């Protein structure tokens, strides 16, 4: 579809009600940084946000501000403050998972232990459009926290890979998102320095080496 044909679709896209060929075409134009569609979609998102102002304003409870600030406060001032802030956010996210999504207690406890370990580092996830946080601890393993994960296609599963520096990817476990789309996956620790963590779609029984292109890659 041409930019001109898409001109009337920008607002619907911004509201999230586009579908089918129009949605696919718009995605193509945006992925190609289309000089016509991209600024127009930005403007449409602005318009959609402006529509939000039409709601009647209501006050949340006073405790909400405190809860939100508690997610990121009380971090010591040190060179580690950046990833510790991320860690605080992850702990808060994990709390949300626990409360809202009835996460299995054992896995919750294991994840909290990993996040609390002294050598945990937050990795940089290279898919900024995808909601996922990955943490690595030499002593406790690798933790993937994610939301809005779509179920793997029929007959397929997700597989994590740990890639040590200068070595081939090592299988780091299969996982499936819960019914609500959340994922908490923990892989065993490795002794070697870590080069990357990746996730691929694999046949249902898993693979010994990746057979598809990773759709999620994280690096230290």
């Amino acid at each position, binding site marked *: 579809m041409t930019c001109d044909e898409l001109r009337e679709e920008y607002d619907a896209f911004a509201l999230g009600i586009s579908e089918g060929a129009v949605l696919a075409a718009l995605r193509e134009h945006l992925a190609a940084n289309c000089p016509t569609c991209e600024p127009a979609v930005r403007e449409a998102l602005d318009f959609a946000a402006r529509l939000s102002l039409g709601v009647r304003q209501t*006050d949340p409870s006073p405790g909400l501000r405190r809860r939100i*600030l508690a997610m990121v406060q009380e971090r010591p001032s040190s060179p580690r403050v950046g990833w510790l802030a991320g860690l605080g956010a992850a702990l808060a996210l994990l709390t*949300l998972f626990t409360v809202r999504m009835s996460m299995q207690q054992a896995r919750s406890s294991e994840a909290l232990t990993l996040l609390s370990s002294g050598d945990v580092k937050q990795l940089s996830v290279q898919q900024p459009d995808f*909601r996922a946080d990955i943490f690595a601890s030499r002593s406790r393993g690798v933790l993937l926290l994610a939301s809005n*994960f779509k179920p793997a296609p029929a007959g397929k599963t997700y597989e994590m890979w740990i890639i040590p520096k200068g070595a081939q990817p090592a299988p780091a476990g299969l996982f499936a998102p819960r019914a*609500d789309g959340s994922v908490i996956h923990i892989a065993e620790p490795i002794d070697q320095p870590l080069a990357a963590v990746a996730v691929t779609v694999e046949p249902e029984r898993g693979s010994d080496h990746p057979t598809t292109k990773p759709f999620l890659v994280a690096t230290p």
Partner: protein
Amino acid sequence: MSLLGLLLGLEVPEGDRELVDRLKRRDPRALAELYDRFGRLAYSVIIAIVRDSGIAEDLVQETFLRVWNRVQAFDSQRGAMGPWLLTVARNRAIDHVRSAAARMSRNVYELEEREHPSLFVDSERDLISSDQGRIVRAALTTLNDNQKKVIELAYYEGLSQTEMAEKLGQPLGTIKTWVRSALKRLREELDRVPA
């Protein structure tokens, strides 16, 4: 800068730019300031959709956590926080109210693709000026019943146009016409009054 912004010669306010920079430096006080500016509005958007105060507060928390975690990708020179934060807030609420079946039938990136920080540059600046709510509500009153219905289904329930057609028992073409005419009408009304 958007067309409206260009016409009005609006600039990114220094406060917004400075706030984003502080958020990028992981300054908790910046998050407090962000909450003080947008917390009530984010909560109002979310509760209008989920209609449960406890769930709404959890989703506001998720919204601010998401903004905190993704602010590094936000362009402090060109971006305004309000539109981005409100988009994230609405997406969290829509994701919550969608049925499990609807969630599974839609692409996992669908909500995410419309809230990436890079899309919120050159935005309108003063989203929370006092009169904006009244202006938007007045614009909504200019829609006819069919237009109003599809905008409500889109905004509050996140239904696709096919889903609206099924729900309202109307041909898809009719729904698309109603949606387009409603959005066009709203734009005309809002463009008469600068943001």
